[in-house]
């Protein structure tokens, strides 16, 4: 049986939506309404490698949505984000990203599409601990062939956006959890992606720090970016337009 979660899907019947396990919340007043254009993400019959789910995954995400993904348990959420971020392939099923069937892409084309379309905030933030925050946020631009001067300008711009300007030259290992989370968001933003995938962005943060990070993600969503947040944190769910429980039969 296929478990379907199609939040914001214009062609989803009401009774279908009611049959899913998704817990849909009301849109916050600040959130932009999702675009009615073609879907940004379309999953059909997806299975994850090494993750046993009770049913195949179907998911439709429209541009401009902010969705929190809760469930399956954390390994499954991270695995799903890795598939969505094109750094892993599904065991089965199809994944169409902004009209491109990713199953047909070669590895290098996936890397190019990932660099162009997707910004990822990894579960452990995965910063280079010995490099400065500026180096960390500009790392994706190294592989975009951007000259160093332009990288530095863009990096400082992003650090300003995530309120880390004063820590630009500080090694990542010397800053706190909140700064690392902000830096990871900044690194995801540096290529101006259409899709932002965040895996547990508030893990290990105090409540006020988590609010800063989630608030930043909500701001980015208001600017028009599609944001998917995999988290068990109810605070994140409160900011999202949709909260999706995946994997329930």
């Amino acid at each position, binding site marked *: 049986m296929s478990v379907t979660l199609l939040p914001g899907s214009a062609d989803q019947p009401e009774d279908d939506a009611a049959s899913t396990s998704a817990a849909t919340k009301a849109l916050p007043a600040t959130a932009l309404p999702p675009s009615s254009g073609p879907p940004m993400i379309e999953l059909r019959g997806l299975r994850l490698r090494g993750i046993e789910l009770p049913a195949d995954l179907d998911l439709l995400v429209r541009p401009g949505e902010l969705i929190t993904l809760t469930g399956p348990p954390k390994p499954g959420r991270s695995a799903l984000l890795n598939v969505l971020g094109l750094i*892993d392939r599904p065991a089965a099923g199809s994944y169409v990203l902004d009209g491109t069937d990713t199953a047909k892409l070669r590895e290098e084309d996936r890397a*190019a599409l990932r660099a162009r379309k997707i910004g990822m905030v990894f579960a452990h933030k995965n910063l280079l*601990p010995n*490099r400065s925050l500026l180096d960390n946020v500009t790392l994706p631009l*190294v592989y*975009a*062939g951007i000259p160093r001067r332009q990288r530095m300008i863009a990096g400082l*711009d992003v650090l300003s956006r995530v309120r880390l300007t004063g820590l630009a030259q500080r090694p990542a290992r010397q800053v706190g959890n909140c700064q*690392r989370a902000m830096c990871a968001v900044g690194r995801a933003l540096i290529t*101006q992606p259409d899709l932002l995938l965040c895996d547990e962005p508030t893990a290990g943060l105090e409540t006020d720090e988590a609010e800063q990070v989630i608030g930043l993600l909500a701001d980015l969503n208001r600017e028009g970016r599609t944001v998917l947040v995999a988290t068990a944190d109810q605070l994140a769910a409160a900011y999202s337009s949709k909260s999706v429980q995946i994997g329930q039969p």
Partner: protein
Amino acid sequence: MTALARPKTRLRPADAAGEAFSGMVTAPGNAVATALVALLAVGWFVALLGLTSTATGAVASAFAARLPTTIRITSAGSRLPAPAFPYPAAALHRVEALPGVIATGVYWQIGLNQAVSARPYVTKKQPGHPVIAATAGFLAAAGAQISAGRAFDAWDQARAAPLCLVGSTLARSLGLAGLARQPRVYINNLGCVIAGYIAHASREPGILRSVVIPAAAAEAVFGPPDRRARPTLLIQTRPGAAGQVARLAPYAISQTAPQRYPARVDYGPALLRQQVATALGGLIAAASFVGLAAGALGIAALALFCGWRRVPEYALRRALGARRRHIVAHALAESAVPGLIGGLAGASLGVAIVVLVAMNNHWTPVIAPILLWPAPFAGAAAAMIAWLIPAAVAALARPANALARLVPG
């Protein structure tokens, strides 16, 4: 922000170098370890090769000092009539002109042993002693050293001066008490002035028990050499030239009948030299291969270890847009520099070791440049190859798996 996205990810060479430099500066442990292993491996390799080649040179020098330098030519018996003294001055000049010849001289024993005494008219039966007639170059060719007095010279030879040289062994047996107190000896009761004493003769030690007189004087007193005397031509050559001179000298003496003048060369330890050189060559080859293998394995092991620690970081870079070739470029750039620096320092260290050991043993240091110059590049190449393995693993692995190993930052 400006639009920064590009259709394809790419890595500029300057950025590859910059990322490698940043990696070395911010986390120098890997670079230092790679350079250190390259230093030790290349240094050990260069030192081993240098020491073995230096030792080979020392052995070769020791054997070169013992190469044959003496040739004896004695006219062989023949049915054809041959002159009693077959070495005219022109023939000796031709032999002396051969490349590698240092000195030549002709000598023969006068009759059988002669009665030699320190005093005249000794009635008691005296034991016989050899009396040798020698041309001017004989003493030099025989390596004779005069302990007292002087040797013959051309003037003595030209005028058949009644002089003689007495070997030190014979002088002791005759009880000769020095030139001042005993200025002459008596050969068959004929007085002969002692010009000097022969203390040493490296190539003809028999003359230490003999009396040597100028050939001209011998011919004047005892007549020319007879057939039984068989004058011998003694030739001193440079080390290594004896074989060539021995082949040419019979033709220099007589172009029409060279077979009458067979040359004898004392080859001494030539066979031993060849055996030692062969054994040493095998040892050098084995040691070189062992050194090369050990050095390469050492570099590879540590570089592999260092590179392996970078796998999660490479995976992160892949997740951020790096292509597989970019990861390989990172690994090559980051390993080449410390490998090259370590190899350069190792080559210098190896040369220093060779020079110090050679100086300590009074050897000549020998290092083949063809082995020395590529050594730093060999270190860099070994490090790069070793780093390629984890780079390939990172490039081929699923980034999602490798990311899980990255230390949370």
